[in-house]
């Protein structure tokens, strides 16, 4: 990759924004919140974050907000990630590596199917099987 200038970055951002407006996103955003405390980072939260970004890029998603947060108190299952999708219960996933991140994007975010093996904190049993 050649060194990008700020002007090039601005152009890329503007063309990206133009694309988004054409697609008429309804303002309904998906939130991905990655736990990046010391425990998360030690367990590979950076790889998970990169995995999410790569999957978002590969699938051309554009109404996703990605945030980092501190430790969520589930250090035994780091990296942990909270996923909020409109119309679905908020879910905390544990042991999320880059491959699981990809799975979360492709199943949970794109097809509203939870990634069962990695759910740490789930709503009542009658909501999910």
């Amino acid at each position, binding site marked *: 990759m*050649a*060194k990008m200038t700020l002007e090039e970055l601005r152009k890329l951002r503007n063309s990206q924004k133009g694309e988004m407006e054409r697609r008429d996103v309804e303002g309904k955003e998906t939130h991905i919140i990655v736990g990046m405390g*010391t425990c998360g980072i030690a367990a590979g939260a950076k790889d998970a974050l990169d995995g999410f970004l790569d999957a978002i890029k590969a699938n051309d998603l554009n109404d996703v907000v990605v945030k980092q947060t501190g430790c969520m108190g589930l250090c035994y299952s780091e990296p942990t990630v909270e996923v909020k999708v409109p119309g679905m219960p908020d879910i905390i996933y544990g042991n999320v590596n880059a491959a699981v991140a990809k799975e979360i994007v492709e199943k949970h975010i794109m097809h509203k199917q939870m990634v069962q093996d990695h759910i740490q904190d789930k709503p009542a049993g009658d909501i999910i099987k």
Partner: protein
Amino acid sequence: MHYSLSDMILDLVQNSIEAGSRLIRLDLNRENNFLTVRLTDDGCGMTEGELEKAKDPFYSDGIKHKHRKVGLGIPFLIQTVEQTDGLFDIHSEKNKGTSLNIRFNLGHYDTPPEGDWPGLFMQTLCFEGDYELIINRMITGENGSESAYTLQRTELQDVLGDFNESGAMLLLRDYLRSQEEDLSV
């Protein structure tokens, strides 16, 4: 304890942000086998007494983590530097700010790996809050040649908008990686 030097620096920048700093400067200069890190902020600072406590692993002010009895960011850093022939120096003035000077000896067998610098920069730029962060990254070659780049948070926000929007974060990641890849001496 953190695996890489870049993760240790993350804790320090986070300290600056949590100290309410408006302006934070982070300079990283690698010259031969030494990495010099300088961090200055205009946050709440510490009194001499508080500064001594910050060096004690069995002290925490208890504000961020209510029940925690330890504060390990600075103590682990001091331990690493002492074990690997590096240098560490911290100055702080109450209500003025704090500055840190660290020199890592990259040639020492026990110095942790440097880690992912563009990844660190992305993390430090993406914290919430209204702070300015200026990062200077430089590599100086044996013959004195310099290769460097500078990042300024407000300037990048002006170009990209909210970093948390995934499109902006993807471009920020590409931008930071391209700056790092271009470094050469």
